[in-house]
């Protein structure tokens, strides 16, 4: 009786128990005596039960599968016809599953050995090497100049007395339309700073309020991928779809232009 309990605990699942029974009885996998296999399988489950070992649902499902195959085998077969060829042996799926499981069981033994061999070669923990950022390989001179122009423009806006700035009126609605149309021209996305290309304070303020308004209306969103990263403005996809149907960005753009 003790022998059983030892055996029972070895099986990790119904596939393994099946393989054990097939090996033990030297069963030809291509011609499984399904009735006796089912009988032996269920016998094992009974022993599990008598030792109060929990039988997981997987074992029960396999038992049911075996019983089902057994009953299908007992059904009278229709006379041989062409259609008959297509009707698989009721055991076919089970055979395939056992063979497939066998492949991985075998290869997992090889893998185990490989891991043991590699386990004999010890490696070291990486040394603590400080991360050092390198400059990008290529930078655009144009962007450098533009960045400087931008600095000066903002600087001038912030510092110059208002009298030196020409009076121009900008409305938030105007800026909202302009921003949406520019976004569509650029494929729905643009750099946050690129939005503020205006030179006068009132224009910058109008643009900024337009951005806030569009965010509130959930027409656009503003996001930053990481700290110190680029800030981007993007049109909400849903919004684009609902407002313009399935239209391609180009078509949307054309329509916008016509409206404007």
């Amino acid at each position, binding site marked *: 009786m003790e022998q059983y309990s030892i055996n029972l605990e070895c099986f990790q699942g119904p596939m393994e128990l099946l393989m054990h029974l097939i090996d033990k009885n030297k069963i030809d996998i291509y011609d499984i005596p399904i009735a006796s296999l089912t009988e032996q399988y269920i016998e094992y489950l009974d022993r599990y039960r008598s030792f109060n070992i929990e039988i997981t649902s997987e074992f029960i499902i396999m038992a049911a599968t075996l019983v089902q195959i057994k009953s299908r085998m007992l059904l009278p077969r229709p006379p041989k016809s062409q259609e008959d060829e297509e009707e698989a042996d009721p055991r076919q799926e089970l055979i395939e599953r056992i063979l497939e*499981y066998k492949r991985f069981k075998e*290869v997992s033994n090889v893998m185990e050995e490989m891991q043991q061999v590699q*386990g004999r070669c010890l490696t070291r923990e990486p040394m603590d090497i400080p991360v050092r950022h390198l400059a990008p390989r290529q930078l655009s001179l144009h962007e450098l100049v533009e960045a400087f122009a931008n600095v000066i423009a903002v600087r001038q806006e912030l510092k110059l007395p208002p009298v030196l700035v020409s009076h121009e009126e900008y409305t938030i609605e105007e800026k909202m339309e302009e921003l949406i149309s520019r976004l569509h021209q650029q494929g729905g996305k643009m750099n946050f700073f690129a939005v503020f290309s205006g030179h006068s304070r009132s224009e910058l303020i109008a643009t900024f309020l337009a951005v806030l308004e569009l965010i509130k209306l959930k027409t656009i969103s503003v996001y930053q991928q990481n700290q110190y990263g680029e800030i981007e403005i993007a049109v909400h996809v849903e919004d684009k779809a609902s407002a313009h149907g399935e239209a391609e960005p180009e078509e949307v753009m054309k329509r916008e232009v016509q409206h404007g």
Partner: protein
Amino acid sequence: MDRLVGALEAVLFASGEPVSHGALLEILQIDGPRLEQLLDNYRQELLERHSGLQLQQIAGGWQLATNMDYYDYVQRLGEERDKHLSQAAMETLSIVAFKQPITKQEIEHIRGVRIEKIMSRLLEMELIRELGRKDTIGRPILYGTTDTFLQCFGLKDLGDLPELPAPDTNSLTQEQMILFQEQSE
């Protein structure tokens, strides 16, 4: 010794982990053929003096590890982390390795058991990872192996996996099928 062999040795030692071919080219500032030559020389040198170290090509890069011949000594350090996998975990991992990308359900079908816990253990050990989602109902997660997996098994890349035993089912010919249909009658 070639000064660059020393540099190579220092870099591999410091890294601990496999260093890619590309990274070595950049760090040593040499071209491909020269690197091949250095790696060859270094490996040769380690062998000749029966060094405690060996050069391994693993997980798409090069790394230093202890020479297996000295395992008895190294073992006494007691530094080994327990990397032992249960039989169930090894089977599951094998299925992921050979069948990736694969879903949990597909693995469960092969093994005939639920693998919830084993999968989370393998994920925790960083031997497997999520690759994406399958385009079927429920969009189940697809799993694959990691670089850590390659390192644990001493594999250069996935092409380095052992041969999977042939699927015998393919050898079931039409005749065999008919034969066992007859037998079951």
